[in-house]
């Protein structure tokens, strides 16, 4: 009998501990299984909530490498009634950390991740739809279009940007001067880029390349995506539901990039590895031109302050049309948070998008603010590159996302794998695009 009692006590103990593990911290209605694009979240209150006391858990991937301590401290000082708790993890580990937190119902109330990942969260019902909040409290006119990077065709907005990172054509002035070749201009086409790269490529007596004309990156943002777009091709169609890699124009764009690498006037992977990566190769004058992401300027200015360089807009494509791919990291609010915490989180995001906080974002140089007033801060900025208009005007004129949708993370991996194979010489571009289409379409159809 005693043994039975004891067993029951031990079992009860286990049950208590187990139950504690699966706590649920939300007071709101549990969400059902939301259908794609439908949110199971409550709308915000009619008017902006009066500043009442609330708790707010903010998730910071990469701690203050990505966002700035000044902004967080500014928010805490401004809203003493909101009790802020910070949770950080290295950028690389954050994805798996947050995944397990979401599963356990212990995620922060508001956190930052890649825009594409956030679209996936929106589809699964993890993110609060911010469209009504934006409509109630923000003036669209004060922001560049990228404010809506996380907007779906159905009209949900799953996050707001912390900033955005477009690309521009960076050029190393010293290499151009040494070769006696005029600098690039905003009117350049991709053909100009290719021809000038050939002229700038310098070999030694043994035929080994010393200086390449251009950094032949094969990543999505600085590599295959802009090359496909400039040729008039597409990765996905307008509805983001059809794979368009077999389109002859897409093939032509990809082929131009591959030719540059194979024919030796764009850098190859081995050269970049041996010379410390793409930023370093460009900064040290081993590659004359580079599709530079805005945030990379921080590392060039920090590690190579003496490099003489500037930027112009990304060249125009085959049909005279310009495309400027941009990458956005965005904040989302957890749909599982209590309404008080959601309101507090929205206060935080409003503060984050304010002139004051966005000016700090602008000064950091790691990303472009989406607030137009803060963008003007850059006009008086004398740090390199001087021509920051190449980024700001470029994105205003021709900014495009990387065809982001809810399955972006999955289909992007597939494309990258095949592009790597093509560049390694293991398959032709034509073979590659067939394989991409065959693999990407099922993912888009939700059958992967």
């Amino acid at each position, binding site marked *: 009998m005693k043994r039975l009692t004891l067993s029951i006590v031990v079992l009860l103990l286990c049950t208590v501990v*187990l139950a504690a593990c699966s706590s649920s911290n939300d007071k709101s209605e549990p969400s059902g299984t939301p259908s794609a694009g439908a949110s199971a979240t409550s709308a915000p209150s009619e008017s902006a909530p009066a500043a009442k006391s609330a708790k707010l858990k903010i998730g910071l991937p990469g701690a203050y490498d990505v966002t700035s301590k000044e902004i967080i401290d500014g928010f805490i000082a401004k809203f003493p009634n909101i009790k802020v708790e910070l949770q950080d993890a290295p950028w690389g580990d954050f994805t798996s950390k947050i995944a397990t937190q979401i599963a356990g119902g212990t995620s922060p109330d508001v956190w930052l991740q890649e825009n594409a990942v956030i679209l996936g969260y929106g589809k699964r019902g993890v993110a609060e739809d911010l469209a009504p909040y934006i409509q109630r409290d923000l003036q669209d006119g004060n922001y560049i279009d990228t404010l809506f990077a996380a907007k779906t065709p159905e009209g949900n907005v799953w996050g707001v940007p912390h900033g955005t990172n477009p690309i521009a054509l960076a050029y190393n002035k010293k290499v151009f001067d040494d070769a006696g070749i005029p600098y690039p201009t905003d009117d350049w086409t991709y053909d100009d880029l290719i021809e000038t790269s050939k002229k700038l490529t310098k070999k030694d007596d043994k035929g080994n390349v010393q200086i390449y004309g251009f950094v032949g990156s094969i990543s999505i943002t600085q590599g295959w995506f802009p090359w496909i777009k400039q040729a008039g091709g597409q990765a996905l169609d307008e509805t983001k539901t059809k794979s368009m890699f077999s389109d002859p124009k897409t093939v032509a764009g990809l082929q131009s990039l591959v030719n540059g690498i194979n024919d030796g006037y764009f850098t190859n992977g081995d050269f970049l590895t*041996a010379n410390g990566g793409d930023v370093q190769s460009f900064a040290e004058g081993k590659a004359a031109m580079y599709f530079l992401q805005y945030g990379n300027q921080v590392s060039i200015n920090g590690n190579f302050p003496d490099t003489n360089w500037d930027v112009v807009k990304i060249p125009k494509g085959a049909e005279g049309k310009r495309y400027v791919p941009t990458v956005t990291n965005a904040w989302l609010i957890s749909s599982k948070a209590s309404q008080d915490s959601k309101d507090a989180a929205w206060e935080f995001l409003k503060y984050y998008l304010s002139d004051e906080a966005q000016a700090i974002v602008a000064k950091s140089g790691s990303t472009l603010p989406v607030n137009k007033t803060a963008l003007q801060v850059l006009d008086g900025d004398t740090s390199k590159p001087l021509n920051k208009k190449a980024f700001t005007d470029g994105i205003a004129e021709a900014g495009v996302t990387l065809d982001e949708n809810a399955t972006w993370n999955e289909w992007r991996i597939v494309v*990258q794998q095949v592009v790597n194979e093509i560049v390694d010489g293991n398959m032709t571009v034509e073979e590659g695009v067939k394989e991409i289409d065959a693999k990407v379409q099922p993912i888009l159809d939700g059958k992967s």
Partner: protein
Amino acid sequence: MQKQGYWGYLFTAPFVINIILFIAFPIFFSAYISFTHWDLFNPPEWVGLDNWVRLFKQDSFWVSLRNVLFFALIFVPLQTILAFVVAYMLNQSLRGSTVFRLLYFMPVVTPWIASALLWAWLYNYKFGMINWLLESLGVDPVKWLDSKYWWLTIGSVAIVNVWKGIGDSMIAMLAGMQNVPKEVLESAEIDGANKWKQLTKIVFPLVSPMIYLVMLLSTIAAFQAFDAFLGMYGALDAGSVQERNMVPNLLIYRDAFLLTKMGPASAMAWALFVIILAFTLFQRYFEKRWVHYD
């Protein structure tokens, strides 16, 4: 029940709870998840055998399995044999054997990130030392880590693993060898047994339990290799590893945490468990033929 029985239960309770909570529960939960679609957020949705059926049709899983089998096939015998040879040499009363022991053990305590960086340089196609050596011998350079032949890539990673793991296995075998009674070897020598005879007829049988242990553990380690591959491929995450060079653990991690497909990932994890179990049982079956415990 006697009074002291209570204390027994009470003292073991933390361990029992720990096992139930952090080992038994996740095991059964992942088995359940393998029959569902679960995105970590919405409640798991029962799909029956769907994940398992797909698993058998999924090329990437079979490719990763082929890779890891090949990896184990190179890594386990090579590491076991080399560790045995090194241990035997270090067991002779050589001068400076402590220094050698230290040298062989160094890679074990080197973090994977550092080892991987070093070897990635050695293997580099254009600037690596290995290809430079080959070229000076008049042989064409080889693409070690980005070859179109999967076996070359996996083989290259296996070699690094042997280099890194040899010290560990060597220490285990050395411990076994030092337990071999000197008198036995001396009397064998008096009876006219040469070194080779002593090694094969005396040392090997007596050290065989250690060799068996090393084989078993390195087989399991081979199937679970993760950071070795990630580091050697220079990949930031499991998403950027080429599919033809994948191993099951990277695939499981990718599907579970990067793509939040918990169902297929759990099915894969269980399939891997069954395979490792089969291999272990296979090794146990042959154990009694060559391992001597007396």
